[in-house]
Structure formats: structure tokens, C-alpha cells
């Protein structure tokens, strides 16, 4: 053995100096590469391995506890198994990287680890902790127990010298030569983390040091022998484990609970293998010897069975393996029910497996919360018992057919349980770790996350038929391509009575497709109506649903579709708000398994034929359920102008303006994309040009009708993917509170919304990675330009856009303020706060580029009521730092946007 001379650490001052040395060494060590570290780890493990016998001898000699040959196994385990398990583990620098996602994990050392080493494993635990520290680039101060200080310090020296020889910084490992209370307190204060192994007191004091601590605690392992167990295997495993190092492993069995049926067999096997069953009076004497006032007598720990028997004045043969007391009580008042850290075992008879579980539960609760439990049974046939046992035991290790001393420390009887000499007991044991402690517990992992933009997609109906008269071709497909046999038509009374669905039914008849119709859909369709339709569907069993009409009929059709396919679905759940439709909590049921869904709009506006949305009202509570999920996307949309020709003027106006707001909100949305932008812009161009014509002369102007029909569906596709914004949030509630048609409600609020969203310094902007700064004003200016609306600045263009929208609204007969539709001012004001809060909570709010405060929503409502304009709260004046060169104005979205694009 080397004979280096080290400064003796026996006082607070010297410890402080030692910690400074370790810290300085650790700072150097922190820059080592994985290759350097692995070389040191290997050399240190080899040295520890070589010293396994000398260290085992020294430990037994110094502590007077345990067995040399078993301590050799522990030392061997602590070096070989730990090395083998972690040799290839990455613990330095980048340990995992995902370039595409912009994420990497970087391992950093913690600093100086303060390690407490127990008397029961003075050398193996020292090896173990020192090796973990080296593998993770930490420094370590080893604190031995006074009873085992020589052997622990010697073990630390061996690892240190081997590590330094392999290139580790000098002083990377240090130790306390003379442990004392003051020194202990200093160590706790100065270290970065405590790695304590010991009894509950030690562990509690580690946790109370105010430093992060990895502490573990006492065990009180019960072992059940079920009547399906291999009794010979069970008994001999327990003897093997219980006698290991004279019972000083904390996972060691303290009690064996044997089922009545195999009790005698187990007892005979224990006796045949050299265990001694205590007679009644002997049991009593051993009781009083092992436990003093509820605490474990220090004199028996790690002693041979015969030595303990002698202390209790019981005469047993010298080679006795275990003293077994047959006892009944599992209460803590029974001395045999305690953790004994010696070859003394309690044996219980259980009348059945439930009794055995109950006893084991109690023993764990009394003294081994979180540690280890074990059971012997036929693991092939008794999986249910394993299941129940593992769910009932509050232990972090549940071992099956395994000697618990060897089993608990891992990698000996199961190769997926990590090898360790520090076994976490979870929150049950007051610990911060529940697994077997390893290197990952001694590193800080930094996650480096680069900004990434959300994945987006574009979804639309599988098929969209358009052009005047396209119905015939579209329906033909039902028979010739899709092979449908039974069609169910959903529509409203007006359309039904005016023969509007006649072209559909005639063709179905021609093709020999059975059909039925539900025509009782009213505006703002109710759940009752949808249920009624769904009942009829259930009876008719369609393989195809054709919803014909405006938003109400199509929405009602979608809901009936849901009820028909999934009668168990809950609307509360389906209507749950989401921040991101792809991360929503609720998984929408799979649609289309029973029926194919076709939407045939009869007015140009809602876009429901191309959206995954539907709104339904619970007539009992008045609650509106806005459902949104791509499962609700129609399979086919038929945009046939023939169905649009007779739409009345009011409907044409309201739907047309609704489509304007769809396009405007989709364009400004946080989730707007090149795909949705192009649809929105084109839709707006068409509507501004053709809405007045469709309004004036709809009955005869087939071109205007067709253009409007296309524009509405395109706007629908746009917002089906980009979503809407706060205008719709407010319009939904205004409509619900004051019975204003949906399109009108949007028309009344759109001006306010545009001004509100256009702010260059909003109180809060929306949260979405793609939306990197407030740039909605520039977006609206783009809309204006696309519509041929000029202005000197973006703000001018916005104001001119609003004027154009206002004149379009006026042109189609829509009045300017909410007051024009809600003359009862008091009622409006009385319910304004409630309406405001509901609007804030509307699903559409999430995609708005500006995150609205409730006070701002209220202000917008008031402005729209009285015909005032939104005014921003005053902000600090930034003009004195303006560069003058608008090219470099960070608020100039178009500049930033185009320069980005150029780069790509």
C-alpha cells in the first residue's frame, strides 16, 4: 500500500481548508473530458477491486462487526459491478442532442459532495461513493463513522491515489480523520450536496442541513413465503441473505411470514439448514437483549447468532446460523418486529395470503417505509398476488423469489435493478430519491433549448366540388365510387318546404340510394334537436349524411353525426377549451366509421362546409358548446351555386360580412400561414367585389353568387387552419346575450378588433413562437394593399381599410353600432361584465395576435355600442430614440419579414 502523507483533518479549521482544496481540485476536474474521466474511473475501480480483501479485513477488525468474506463480496461489488454498469454512461458535457428539435442535454458536476459512510459498510460504501464522484467530475469529502474511521479513510485513500495516478487533480477526494459534531455541521454547510447513507436520524439531519441531500434510511424488510412457493429455494435464499455480513445490509430480511400450509415445511427446512428456533423463555430473553427501550442494542449489531444468544443467556451451538423467534404480534411493541441488523429473525404464521399482506404492510409501516419488501411464490401462476403485493407495499423495491440483501443492491439477482450501495426510500422514507442511487443523482443536467416554431398543417375536406350544377357529379360519386346505400339528409324546415332538397332526393332515388330526411333544424340548433335527429339516424342507419343549409343545418348535422357514431360522448368534455388543438387534453372520438359526411351550403358565409367546428346549444342550460376538432371536418363539400340563388337579402348581407371577418381574423391570427393567407386574401378580394352584386341582384346574378360561394368556402378553409380571433369571441357572446345574428355581431365588432390588434405596443401580445413581435398593423396594411386601398403609412392604410369595410357594411344594409340593434342600454350595461368574461374565455381568443385583457374587451364592447374608436393606454414616448431610417425600425414587420425570407 502507498504511504503518502496527508494532513490530518480533525478540526473545523482543517476541514474548511480541506474543503477548499477539494473545491479547487474539482474546479479543474470540471473541465475534464469524458475520455479522461472514464480513464480515471477505470483506474480507481481497479484499485478498489485489488484492495477488496485487505479492506474487508480492516473493516471487520476495526468495527468488530460482520464477516470478512462477505465484506469482500461487498467491496468487489462496489468496484466491479459499479464500473461495469456505468463504464459507458455519458456523464460529461453533451449527453444527448436532438438537432432537429433544437434541444440538447448537458451534464455538469454538482461540486463537492459530502458523503456519510456507515459503520455497517465502511469500505464498500466509501469505494462506491468515491467512484460515483469520479465518474461525475465531482469532488468528495468522505465522512466516516468514528467506529470505522480507519478503514473508511484507508478506502478513500486507495481510490484517491489511483485516480490521481490516472490523471485526476490532486485532492479531488478528501476525508475527515476525526469526526465530530462541529466538523459534521461544517461539512454540511460547505458541501454542494449531501450523500448520506445511514439510519433515520442521520438522514433527517442530512435533510435538515439546508443543503440538497440524497439520504436513505432504515429498512424493515418482510419476506412472505406463499403456499405456492418453492419452500427449499425460499428458505435457503432467506438464510443466505440474512446471514450475509451477519445481517448488516439494510435490505436484509427482518421477518419471515409463512403461510399456514407450508409453515411446518419451512420450519423444518430452516432447522435442517442450521437455524435455531428459540423456545418460549429464550424468545423472551432474546427480546430483551436485542431491543432496549424500543431501540436496537448496539452490542448485537453484525454479531454471530451464537454471540447474541450468549448475551441473552441462551445456549446454542457455535455454528448456529440464525436465531428465529416465532412470534405473533407485528406491532412495534414486539421487539422481534424491529430492524435487527443481525442474524435474528422473526417468524410469523399467516392464515392466508391476505393475512400475510396485512402483516407485511404493518411491518413496513413500523420501521421500513420506502425500503424493501420480498415475496416467494410461483411467479408463473401467481401474477395476481405479485400485482397485489407490489401495490400494497410502500417500498421502493419489491423483490420476488430473491434474497433481499443481495437482491436490493441490484444487478445480482436481477440485471435491470441498478447496482448501488445507497438505496433510495422515496417520500415514504423521507427521501428525495426512490431508486438505487447512481451517477445520474450526482450531476446537474442542463437542457439547452433553442427556439423552434410550431409544426403546422393544412386540413381541408377530402373533396370539394364547386361550380354551378356540380351536385350531380358529386352525388354520382356516392354510388359509383363510394358505394353508399343509405343517405340521411339534415336540413331546415324552410329549405325542405320550398323543395330545395328535391334535386338531391330525386338523384338519390334515381341511383337507388335509400334516403330519409330530418328537417327540423332551427337557427342556433339545440342539443334536443340534435338528439332527435340522431335518434332517427339510429333507426335509419345511414352510411352517408348530407347536411344541406346554412351554418345551423351543417352544425346540427355534424353534432348528429357525433351522436350517431359515439352516443357515449360527453359534450362538456368535447367542448373543453384548448390552447393548441394538437395538444388538447380531450381525445375526440374517431369519426366516419359509420357514415360519410357531406355538407352542402345554401348561403355564402359560415364556411362550416370546410371547417372542423360546430356550435350547439344546450336548451336546458342555455350553454353553447363550441366543438372544434379535425374529426368534425366534413368528408365532402359541395359548393353548387344552384342552392344559393334564392338566399334572401338579409342573409346574403350577414353571411357575406361574416366571411369578411373570417378572412380578416384568419389573416391576423397567430397561426396564419402562407397557405391560409392566400385563401383569406383571395376571399376578401372576391367579397369586396361581388357582395354588393349578390346583395342587389342575387336571384339573377349567378356569377356573383358563385364567386361569393367560393369566397365563403375559401375563407372557411383559411380559418379552419389559422383559427379566428377576439372579434369572434365577442360576437359569439353578443349574439348569445342579445340575439343578434352571428354575421351582424361580427360586423359590429370588427372595426374595434382591427384597431385593437393593430397596436404596435399592445399590453400583451399572443403567445406563439411564430409570432415574434407585434406586427398585426403591417398585416392589415397588406390586406389593404391587396384590396387596392392606399395610404401614406400602415396606419393610414388601416384606417382606409376600416372605412372600406364600413362602406361595404353600409352598402349591404348593416347598421353601424350595437346600440342600433340593442336599444336597451341599461340591459346591455348590466350584463356587460358577464358577457366580457365569457368572451375572454371563448375558444377564439387563443389565436388572436393580441392577448386581450378583460378590461380591453369591455372597452371594445362599449366603443362598439356607442360608436367610438379604440384608444390605446398611453405608452412611454419612444420617438427620441428613433433612428429615422425606417428600414431598421424593428416594428416594421415587412422589412423584418422580407429580410428573413431572403435569407432562406
Amino acid at each position, binding site marked *: 500500500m502507498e504511504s503518502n502523507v496527508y494532513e490530518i483533518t480533525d478540526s473545523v479549521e482543517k476541514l474548511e481548508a480541506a474543503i477548499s482544496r477539494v473545491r479547487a481540485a474539482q474546479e479543474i476536474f470540471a473541465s475534464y473530458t469524458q475520455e479522461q474521466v472514464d480513464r480515471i474511473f477505470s483506474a480507481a475501480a481497479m484499485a478498489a477491486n485489488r484492495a477488496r480483501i485487505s479492506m474487508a479485513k480492516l473493516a471487520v477488525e476495526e468495527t468488530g462487526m460482520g464477516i470478512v468474506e462477505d465484506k469482500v463480496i461487498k467491496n468487489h461489488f462496489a468496484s466491479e459491478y459499479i464500473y461495469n454498469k456505468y463504464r459507458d454512461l455519458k456523464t460529461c458535457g453533451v449527453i444527448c442532442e436532438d438537432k432537429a428539435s433544437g434541444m440538447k442535454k448537458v451534464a455538469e458536476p454538482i461540486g463537492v459532495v459530502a458523503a456519510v459512510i456507515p459503520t455497517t459498510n465502511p469500505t464498500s460504501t466509501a469505494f462506491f461513493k468515491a467512484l460515483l464522484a469520479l465518474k461525475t467530475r465531482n469532488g468528495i469529502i468522505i465522512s466516516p*463513522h468514528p467506529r470505522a474511521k480507519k478503514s473508511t479513510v484507508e478506502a478513500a485513500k486507495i481510490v484517491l491515489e489511483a485516480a490521481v495516478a490516472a490523471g485526476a487533480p490532486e485532492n479531488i477526494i478528501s476525508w475527515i480523520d476525526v469526526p*465530530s459534531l462541529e466538523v459534521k455541521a461544517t461539512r454540511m454547510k460547505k458541501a454542494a450536496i449531501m450523500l448520506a447513507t*445511514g*439510519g433515520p436520524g442521520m438522514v433527517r439531519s442530512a435533510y435538515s442541513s439546508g443543503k440538497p441531500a440524497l439520504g436513505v434510511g432504515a429498512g424493515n424488510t418482510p419476506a412472505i413465503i406463499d403456499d405456492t412457493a418453492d419452500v427449499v429455494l425460499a428458505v435457503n435464499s432467506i438464510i443466505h441473505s440474512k446471514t450475509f455480513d451477519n445481517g448488516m445490509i439494510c435490505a436484509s430480511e427482518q421477518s419471515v411470514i409463512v403461510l399456514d400450509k407450508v409453515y411446518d415445511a419451512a420450519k423444518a427446512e430452516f432447522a435442517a439448514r442450521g437455524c435455531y428456533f428459540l423456545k418460549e423463555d429464550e424468545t423472551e430473553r432474546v427480546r430483551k437483549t436485542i431491543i*432496549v*427501550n*424500543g*431501540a436496537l442494542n448496539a452490542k448485537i*449489531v453484525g454479531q454471530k447468532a451464537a454471540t447474541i444468544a450468549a448475551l441473552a443467556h441462551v445456549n446454542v451451538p457455535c455454528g448456529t446460523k440464525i436465531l428465529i423467534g416465532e412470534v405473533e404480534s407485528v406491532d412495534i411493541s414486539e421487539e422481534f418486529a424491529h430492524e435487527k*441488523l443481525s442474524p435474528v429473525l422473526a417468524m410469523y404464521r399467516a392464515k392466508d395470503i391476505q393475512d400475510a399482506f396485512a402483516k407485511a404492510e404493518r411491518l413496513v409501516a413500523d420501521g421500513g417505509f420506502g425500503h424493501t419488501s420480498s415475496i416467494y411464490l410461483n411467479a408463473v401462476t401467481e401474477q395476481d398476488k405479485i400485482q397485489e403485493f407490489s401495490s400494497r407495499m410502500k417500498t421502493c423495491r419489491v423483490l420476488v423469489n430473491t434474497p433481499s440483501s443481495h437482491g436490493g443492491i441490484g444487478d445480482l439477482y436481477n440485471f435491470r435493478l441498478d447496482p448501488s450501495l445507497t438505496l433510495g426510500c422515496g417520500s415514504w422514507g423521507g427521501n428525495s430519491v426512490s431508486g438505487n442511487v447512481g451517477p445520474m443523482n450526482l450531476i446537474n443536467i442542463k437542457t439547452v433549448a433553442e427556439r423552434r416554431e410550431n409544426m403546422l398543417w393544412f386540413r381541408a375536406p377530402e373533396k370539394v366540388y364547386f361550380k354551378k350544377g356540380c351536385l350531380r357529379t358529386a352525388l354520382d360519386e356516392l354510388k359509383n365510387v363510394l358505394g353508399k346505400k343509405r343517405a340521411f339528409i339534415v336540413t331546415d324546415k324552410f329549405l325542405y318546404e320550398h323543395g330545395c332538397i328535391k334535386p338531391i332526393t330525386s338523384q338519390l332515388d334515381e341511383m337507388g340510394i335509400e334516403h330519409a330526411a330530418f328537417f327540423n333544424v332551427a337557427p342556433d340548433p339545440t342539443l334536443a334537436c340534435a338528439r332527435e335527429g340522431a335518434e332517427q339516424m339510429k333507426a335509419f342507419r345511414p352510411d352517408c349524411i348530407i347536411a344541406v343549409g346554412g351554418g345551423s343545418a351543417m352544425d346540427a348535422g355534424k353534432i348528429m353525426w357525433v351522436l350517431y357514431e359515439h352516443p357515449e360522448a360527453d359534450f362538456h368534455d368535447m367542448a373543453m377549451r384548448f390552447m393548441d388543438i394538437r395538444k388538447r387534453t380531450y381525445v375526440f372520438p374517431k369519426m366516419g366509421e359509420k357514415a360519410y359526411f357531406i355538407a352542402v351550403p345554401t348561403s355564402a358565409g359560415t364556411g362550416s362546409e370546410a371547417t372542423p367546428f360546430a356550435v350547439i346549444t344546450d336548451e336546458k342550460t342555455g350553454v353553447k358548446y363550441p366543438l372544434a376538432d379535425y374529426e368534425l371536418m366534413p368528408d365532402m363539400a359541395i359548393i353548387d351555386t344552384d342552392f344559393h340563388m334564392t338566399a334572401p337579402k338579409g342573409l346574403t348581407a350577414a353571411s357575406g360580412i361574416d366571411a369578411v371577418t373570417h378572412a380578416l381574423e384568419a389573416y391576423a391570427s397567430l397561426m396564419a400561414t402562407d397557405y391560409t393567407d392566400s385563401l383569406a386574401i383571395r376571399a376578401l378580394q372576391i367579397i369586396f367585389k361581388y357582395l354588393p352584386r349578390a346583395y342587389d341582384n342575387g336571384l339573377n346574378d349567378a356569377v356573383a353568387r358563385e364567386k361569393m360561394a367560393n369566397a365563403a368556402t375559401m375563407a372557411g378553409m383559411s380559418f379552419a387552419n389559422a383559427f379566428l380571433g377576439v372579434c369572434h369571441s365577442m360576437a359569439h357572446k353578443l349574439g348569445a346575450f342579445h340575439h343578434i345574428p352571428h354575421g351582424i355581431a361580427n360586423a359590429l365588432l370588427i372595426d374595434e378588433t382591427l384597431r385593437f390588434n393593430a397596436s404596435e405596443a399592445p399590453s400583451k401580445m399572443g403567445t406563439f413562437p411564430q409570432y415574434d413581435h407585434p406586427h398585426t398593423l403591417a398585416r392589415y396594411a397588406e390586406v389593404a394593399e391587396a384590396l387596392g386601398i392606399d395610404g401614406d403609412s400602415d396606419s393610414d392604410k388601416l384606417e382606409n381599410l376600416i372605412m372600406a369595410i364600413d362602406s361595404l357594411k353600409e352598402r349591404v344594409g348593416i347598421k353601424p353600432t350595437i346600440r342600433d340593434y340593442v336599444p336597451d342600454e341599461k340591459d346591455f350595461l348590466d350584463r356587460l361584465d358577464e358577457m366580457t368574461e365569457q368572451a375572454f374565455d371563448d375558444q377564439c381568443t387563443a389565436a388572436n395576435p393580441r392577448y386581450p385583457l378583460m378590461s380591453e374587451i369591455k372597452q371594445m364592447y362599449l366603443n362598439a355600442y356607442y360608436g367610438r374608436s379604440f384608444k390605446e393606454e398611453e405608452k412611454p414616448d419612444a420617438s427620441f430614440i428613433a433612428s429615422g431610417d425606417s428600414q431598421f425600425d424593428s416594428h416594421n414587420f415587412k422589412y423584418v419579414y422580407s429580410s428573413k425570407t431572403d435569407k432562406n
Partner: protein
Amino acid sequence: MVLERVIAVRNSKTVYRDGANCIKVFDEGYSKADVLNEALNQAKVEKIGICIPEIKEVCKIDGKWAIVSEYIKGNTIERLMELEPEKKDEYLEQFVSLHMDILSKTCPNLNRLKDKMNAQITLADIDATARYDLHARVDGMPRGANVCHGDFIPSNVIVAEDGRPFVIDWAHVTQGNPLADVARTYLLFWLGGNINGASQYLDLYCMKSGVSKQDVQNWMPVVAAAQSTKGNEKEREFLLSWVNVFEYN
């Protein structure tokens, strides 16, 4: 002041009665700090809501330090148990209830129980390894901030003529975990040779308060070690048998 009627003689102090006053006179050589500390401790707990004789004066009588307090007329619970053995259970009940009452009080200015215990263990004539274990054990014991009398035994409770129980001798009061004080009372019964009384007391306390005996027993090794700094050689030997238990570390 007339020091005529001796009420009690204890180690290095004598207690006299003078009309409405009770005078505790300390022997010469008794630490001034200890005397003043005792008076201060008692003054601190006077208002916690327990019947405690009021401190009136701390003075010197014939060159000896003395504490003058209110005299309480009545018998101690210890004496009452002797006088009326048939009512022993009743008195024990009263004793335990009173202990629970005290242990429910707080008094933030008192010294900390664990500090005192650690200081006593440091002084104890026990080998360094065992002291290390005991310090670790004290550290790991649950905390508390309740009034712990420190010497709560039946001879320190006087039942006044109106039936109110007065608690005397607050020299050892600290604030800490109540169960430590229960363990100490249990130990003091033992040391007084009343082993039966000790277990009756503990059973009753645990039953009435709903705490487990195990939780009280956890304190025994450290309470016994702290106590070992005081007692005589025979007591010491007995106490150390309670101290030498294994804290797995």
C-alpha cells in the same frame, strides 16, 4: 425576612416559608448565573396560562443568593398520592392532564431543548463514538417549540387549597418537542425507583394524547445521556444501559 420554617431541603438549596412568601436559598458557591437563570426562566413562563407561583424578588440573604416567590398552601401530588392511595389513579390522571396542558403552551423566549441536550451530551462521560451517535440522534429527532418543564414530577406540582394545581421548579424549562419532556418524566419516575409509576404514566399519557409509545421511546437514549451528566454513579450505570443503542450509521 424570617428563615424559620423549612419546607424542603434539596441538593445545595433550602426552601423556607415566610408568611405569604416562599424563599429558596441557594448554598454558597452555587453559580450566580444558574440562580438568575432559574428566576428568569420562571418569570418567562409566568404568563403562559399555567398556575405558577409568582417571582417576587431575587436577593441575597446572609451572603447567599435567594429567590423569593409566592407561597402556595397545599400538598404536592406526590404527597397526596401517599395520603390517599385509593385516589392514586385520579391524581395520576390530573398529573398527566396538567403535563399535556403545559406541553401545549409555547413561550418563544426560552432556550432550545436540543441546544441544551447537545450541550449536556458534550459534557457527558461517554466515549466519543457514542457521543457522536447521540449528537446525530439529537439532530435527527423531530423539532418542536412547546414548553418543556424539564423536571416534571409529582413532587413539583402543588395542589392549592382551592384545588388549582401549581407547578414549581422551572429551573430546567426549555422549548422543544413535547415527547422529549414526556420521556424525561418517564425516566425521572424510573430514577425515583417508581418503575410501575413510570409505565402507568407513559401508558396514560400515550392513551390520552394519542401519541405512540415508540415516538416517546425514540427520545430515551438522548434523554438518558443528557441526564447522565447529573446523577450519581449508580444512576449513571443504569442510564448508560439505555444510551448504548444502535443508530444505524
